[in-house]
């Protein structure tokens, strides 16, 4: 088949297909992340969440998308129309472009750039223009304040996040996303276990960067109504939402690649075989997981009130069985090539899902920071901590390389202990009361 494609176009075929798949699938995926969020929130808040559209609200995202599409598109008076139109597009485009260097698996990656990580960070940070310009063009105080807050917050936390990423980069020795994962496979350990503090810093800053609670000040509902999105409605508003969730997946993807071993399965060095079979025990995990979900869905079937819902639930169970079958099938030798791709994608998505789940969990638990507290946390705690982290980690690497230190575990424990001490010291310093703010002058 490959001889049908002219050689000039050949290298573009797979990336273009991947790109189209991403752009087509992601909005749906984002819709389901929203549903997941609502369901989780409901569960933690002693209620049910969406239940009406489809069994357990499974069709809710589609209904929501349809509603948003047919909603009236309001443009406020005095708005800068052109900017108002373009701003959400900037946000969503930049978010989707950043996916192009994201390795969803050893196969499914649009472009493995030499500077992949920097590219993702750079393009991801461009989404800020969508926010700032949208806030400005709305001609509303709330929007403008939200936009300015957002800009200040993003710029500050990007520094901390970047420095946290450096600590993992030092270990990997490359900026290419693929090589970073490969480095973790070669060293046999996910970097989260080597630089846990770096992961922690990145986790906190990534929440702030994506404007999620408890750092959701740019869209703080109780203060700024909806921040930069206040004047947006309908589809444009949906685009902002799409960008927000895309950004969540991007930071989760970065964290997964750098700290959680990307598409590697847990214990990549463990080759224990399933008794009596040629399959590795851990390779069978995804199939078992999907089978479990399928069984759970089947157990729910009799409890559905309506015939259609029963059928739908059974269908979901069937789909899970199918996925399990695909996962199991790729274990067999003839499909060796596909195994890497399918299992890699599964593990990558599973890790991204876990990361996003933690985001949501944090959101439902904590109150919101105040703006000055947020800035203080960023500049007086995270950035110094990240700087020290880079120093300590690089020092430990130098020690390991030059003195032939043979105990990586010891060095990890020592660096982490040092970092924890620094973190607690910084936190103590930060907890000391500020000098009371001067009452505003001129009054």
């Amino acid at each position, binding site marked *: 088949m490959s001889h049908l494609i002219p050689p000039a176009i050949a290298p573009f075929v797979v990336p273009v297909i991947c790109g189209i798949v991403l752009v087509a699938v992601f909005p749906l995926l984002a819709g389901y992340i929203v549903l997941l969020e609502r369901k989780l*929130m409901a569960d*933690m*808040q*002693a*209620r049910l969440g969406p239940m009406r559209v489809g069994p357990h609200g499974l069709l809710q995202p589609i209904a929501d998308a349809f509603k948003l599409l047919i909603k009236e598109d309001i443009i406020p008076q005095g708005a800068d129309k052109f900017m108002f139109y373009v701003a959400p597009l900037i946000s969503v485009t930049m978010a989707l472009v950043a996916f192009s260097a994201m390795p969803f698996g050893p196969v499914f990656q649009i472009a493995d750039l030499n500077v992949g990580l920097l590219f993702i960070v750079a393009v991801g940070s461009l989404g800020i223009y969508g926010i700032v310009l949208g806030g400005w063009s709305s001609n509303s*105080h*709330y929007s403008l*304040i939200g936009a300015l807050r957002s800009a200040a917050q993003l710029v500050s936390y990007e520094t901390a996040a970047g420095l946290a990423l450096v600590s993992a980069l030092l270990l990997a020795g490359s900026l290419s996303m693929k090589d970073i994962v490969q480095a973790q496979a070669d060293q046999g350990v996910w970097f989260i276990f080597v630089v846990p503090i770096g992961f922690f810093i990145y986790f906190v800053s990534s929440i702030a960067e994506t404007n999620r*609670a*408890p750092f*959701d*000040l740019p869209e*703080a*509902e*109780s*203060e*700024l*109504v909806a921040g930069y999105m206040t004047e947006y409605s309908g589809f444009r508003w949906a685009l902002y939402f799409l960008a927000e969730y895309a950004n969540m997946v991007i930071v989760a993807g970065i964290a997964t690649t750098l700290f959680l071993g990307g598409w590697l399965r847990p214990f990549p060095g463990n080759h224990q075989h399933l008794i009596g079979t040629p399959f590795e025990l851990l390779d069978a995990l995804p199939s078992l997981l999907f089978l479990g979900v399928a069984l759970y869905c089947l157990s729910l079937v009799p409890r559905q009130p309506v015939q259609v819902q029963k059928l739908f639930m059974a269908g979901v169970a069937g789909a899970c069985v199918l996925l399990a079958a695909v996962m199991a099938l790729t274990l067999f030798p003839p499909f060796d090539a596909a195994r890497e791709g399918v299992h890699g994608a599964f593990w990558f998505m599973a890790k991204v899902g876990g990361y996003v789940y933690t985001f949501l969990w944090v*959101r*439902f*638990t*904590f*109150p*919101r*920071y*105040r*703006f*000055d*507290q947020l800035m203080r946390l960023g500049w007086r705690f995270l950035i110094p901590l990240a700087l020290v982290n880079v120093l300590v980690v690089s020092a430990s690497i130098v020690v390991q390389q030059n003195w032939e230190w043979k105990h990586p575990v010891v060095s990890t424990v020592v660096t982490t202990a040092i970092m924890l001490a620094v973190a607690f010291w910084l936190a103590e310093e930060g907890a000391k009361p500020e000098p009371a*703010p001067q*009452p*505003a002058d*001129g*009054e």
Partner: protein
Amino acid sequence: MTDALTNGGSPIETTVLGADEIILNMGPQHPSTHGVLRVKLKLDGERVLSTECIIGYLHRGVEKIAEHRSYQQFAPYVDRMDYVAAVSNGLGYCETVEKLLGAEAPPRARVVRTILTELQRIASHLLWLGTHALDIGALTPVFYCFREREEILKIFEKYCGARLTTHAFRIGGLQYETYDEFETDVKRFCDDFSGKVDEYETLLTENRIWVGRTKGVGILSTADAIALGVTGPMLRASGLKWDLRKAQPYAAYDQYEFDIPTGKNGDTYDRYLVRMEEMRQSRRICLQAIENIPSGPIMAKVGKVLKPPPGEVYHSIEAPKGELGYYAVSDGTTQPYRVRVRPPSFINLQALDKMARGALVADLVAIIGTTDIVLGEVDR
């Protein structure tokens, strides 16, 4: 009906602005102004230079209506003032008219009134806690609070058929005898409830972000609180141990033991702690009262047509939000000559400017929340 509430009585300058100053209009449609409060803010960046409350969007002329209704007919209207604490409003009004008549409710009625009012206090504080936490960004407590509040409303519904605007009491006592499982219901609620308060406290009290957002925010000194006429939990959080239930007992409060929690710093965090403790104390009162409800009639003999002798009377009770006072003047007819309400929210709201100056916009939201206002009562 625009009423400017500012410290010192002078409306803020909105025409002369510095280079960095902007005017932000918060409300009357804003997620955290608790209804239709409109606050005009003068901001320097995000710092509040001054505030101006613009109220009256929910004005219904309750006091004027009173002059054209008989005493019994007016009773349901008071429920619509502080609509999240309707039972307390009703208690205040009924006791005022009873005082005007020179009548007194029988002991059984007084005890049942106490129980229902204390339940209402818990419900009101729960609503406050939920919305306050939501304002500060904690999404979850509001649902936990509503879960418990629902139990209280169920008791109200079983007792008098209404959940929100209950009209639970009548002038002279009660209209309805308690229902059969009233005692067990209240007891079950009280038994569950102490664990639930601990649950809310687990979520918030020690939370660094919560403490950071509330401690030292919106400080109101004791002197300021007294000067501004602030009452209720806000006054107690400022350090003054003043509770009408102890100071001039009404209903059956003189029979029960309870503590009056007070704060030290008068900040938002102290007000939070005081209200949390008040919920516990209310539960304690309910438990004591439910043990021993005296038997006997539930209605004093006041007659079908109320014609109080000419005269005037002021009576106040400790509503969940502060001192709720009714001043009624009778000219000897079946309709009051004048009824004046001293709503706690309205007067507590005056402290807003004092607390908000120099704070950030985010603090202002916390401060409005901690004032615990209900616009139905502010505007009447």
